[in-house]
């Protein structure tokens, strides 16, 4: 744990230094790249809460990214530019969708759960594709970014960057408190051995569903950030490959750890950036890399760092 905490602190410090360094070297592109990376880190972190700690293999996490993005985009389309309102709707909306999807899918288990979460996300994707009013498959350009009454200007790249970083740090802290609280312990116990958790008197369903909803709401925030980042709303946010990508970030970094998803998001998106600059067929290289990571490096990159005791 000690080595990981140091790694995390160093990593966050490095992330905080990106905007000034990008300014010095006159490479504003990197602010953009790392901001996107951190937004996905938030999404991956939220998935890790249910995947790594709860054992819920949700293959539809991009749904909440989409709901968060659509909440902002749709309100914007109807002339509501107030960021506080937009983001509240994004959080409440994605939590509500997670509640419905979770309530149906957590009743099932194992491979059913994977397929059902995937199918529901696909349903939302097709819904996004078919609503002409909000751009359908072409997507829709945002008229402006979310307005926070002069408190923070998202048009300012560095300001937006630090907002994303602050939210990431906040969510890391909240997640840390959550997985080490009684709630998180029950969740992890359920993952480790569900019959035993039942036998000592816990009813896992409520805990799992709560975690599922919290994760959905967190990912909704990532969605609201993402649509402000791209200033473009498209159903592609909910495409099922996006869910797979977020899941890969968690595994690549190391699931069941809080640092892991952040590391995974950074490494995967930088890797994509490097590979796609090199060849247009970068997915042909990424695919086998994914396969190899799953087959031979199951504990992820964070698994390479020493850990203290049994604590993950």
């Amino acid at each position: 744990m000690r080595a990981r905490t140091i790694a995390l602190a160093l990593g966050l410090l490095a992330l905080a230094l990106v905007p000034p360094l990008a300014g010095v070297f006159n490479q504003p592109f990197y602010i953009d790249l790392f901001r996107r990376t951190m937004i996905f880190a938030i999404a991956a972190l939220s998935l890790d809460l249910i995947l790594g700690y709860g054992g819920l293999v949700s293959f539809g996490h991009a749904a909440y990214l989409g709901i968060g993005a659509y909440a902002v985009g749709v309100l914007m389309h109807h002339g509501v530019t107030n960021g506080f309102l937009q983001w509240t709707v994004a959080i409440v909306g994605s939590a509500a969708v997670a509640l419905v999807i979770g309530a149906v899918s957590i009743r099932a288990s194992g491979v059913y759960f994977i397929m059902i979460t995937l199918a529901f996300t696909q349903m939302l994707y097709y819904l996004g594709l078919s609503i002409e009013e909000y751009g359908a498959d072409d997507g829709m350009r945002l008229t402006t970014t979310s307005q926070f009454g002069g408190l923070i200007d998202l048009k300012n790249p560095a300001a937006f960057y630090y907002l994303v970083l602050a939210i990431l740090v906040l969510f890391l802290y909240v997640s840390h408190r959550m997985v080490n609280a009684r709630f998180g312990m029950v969740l992890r116990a359920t993952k480790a051995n569900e019959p035993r958790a039942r036998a000592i008197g816990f009813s896992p369903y409520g805990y799992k569903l709560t975690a599922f909803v919290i994760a959905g709401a967190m990912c909704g925030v990532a969605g609201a950030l993402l649509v402000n980042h791209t200033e473009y709303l498209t159903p592609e946010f909910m495409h099922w490959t996006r869910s797979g990508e977020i899941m890969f970030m968690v595994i690549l970094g190391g699931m069941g750890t809080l640092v892991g998803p952040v590391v995974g998001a950074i490494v995967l998106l930088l890797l994509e950036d490097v590979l796609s600059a090199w060849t247009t067929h970068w997915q042909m290289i990424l695919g086998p890399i994914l396969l190899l990571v799953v087959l031979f490096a199951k504990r992820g990159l964070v698994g390479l760092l020493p850990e203290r005791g049994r604590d993950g």
Partner: protein
Amino acid sequence: MLLVLEQALNGLQFGVMLFLMAAGLTLVFGIMNMVNLAHGSLYMMGAYFAATFLTHTGNYPLAVLLALVATLLVGVVTEVVALRTLYERDHLDQVLATFGLILFFNELVAVFWGRAALYTSLPTWLGGHLQILGIRYPVYRAVVILVGVLVALLLWVVVTRTRLGMLIRAGATNRTMVAALGVNIRLLYTVVFGFGAALAGLAGLMAGPIYAVQPGMGEQILIQVFVVIVIGGIGSIRGALVGALVVGMVDTLGRAFLKPMLAAVLSPTAAQNAGPALASMLIYLLMAVVLAFRPQGLFPTVRSR
């Protein structure tokens, strides 16, 4: 009324195609306990192989045969190289690894055939129309239905009446016991996987002339096939058949008639907007309803290890 009949036949044709996919997927799951996302890639490979062999040989039956063999080989190679080690892993690993395979296959196809959609032309004897019950129906779609029904029957005979089928059923119930009785279970796995791959390839090559042949074509149907086997009960071939027909019908009829039906209730513009949206969500809603009452699907399978 005639339109309803025509759309019902289209629904049947789509259902048959879904069944060919679902049968392979559900067998692989039932026996190896393996979630194979790359099943859609095999469907795609089948379509591309058929299109390519047809341009080179000009002989449709020969092209179909070659495409089936080629897809079977791709399936067997994939199984031996990558998937074999995954059977003992948990579902998360299987999902991610096969997701990696999908990325690989889609790009592979883009490298060899390009990203633009391919259109296959049919031989003239498959291109005409038939008169069925007073409607003009394309010969090709009728042939697809016929082939699908024949394959379903063949599958039924193989699974219930042959030694291979007996081993498959035994493997699905208790694979350790089957291995203990001296059956080469790895070979059985490879055979079943190749078999499923060929079925997916068949669905793909038949889909070619109806839908566009392009990278990523496999994933759209794959997710619908998931809905089919979740509704039918994972691991059950009978469930796959029922699920495929129900999903095929509901999806096709929904797309054709939901908009006019809504127009009778709502305003035309509202129906114009809600119709297509609701139609594309229909099968997922159906799945949610089925799961609410039968969390294990319509035909749950009993397995022991």
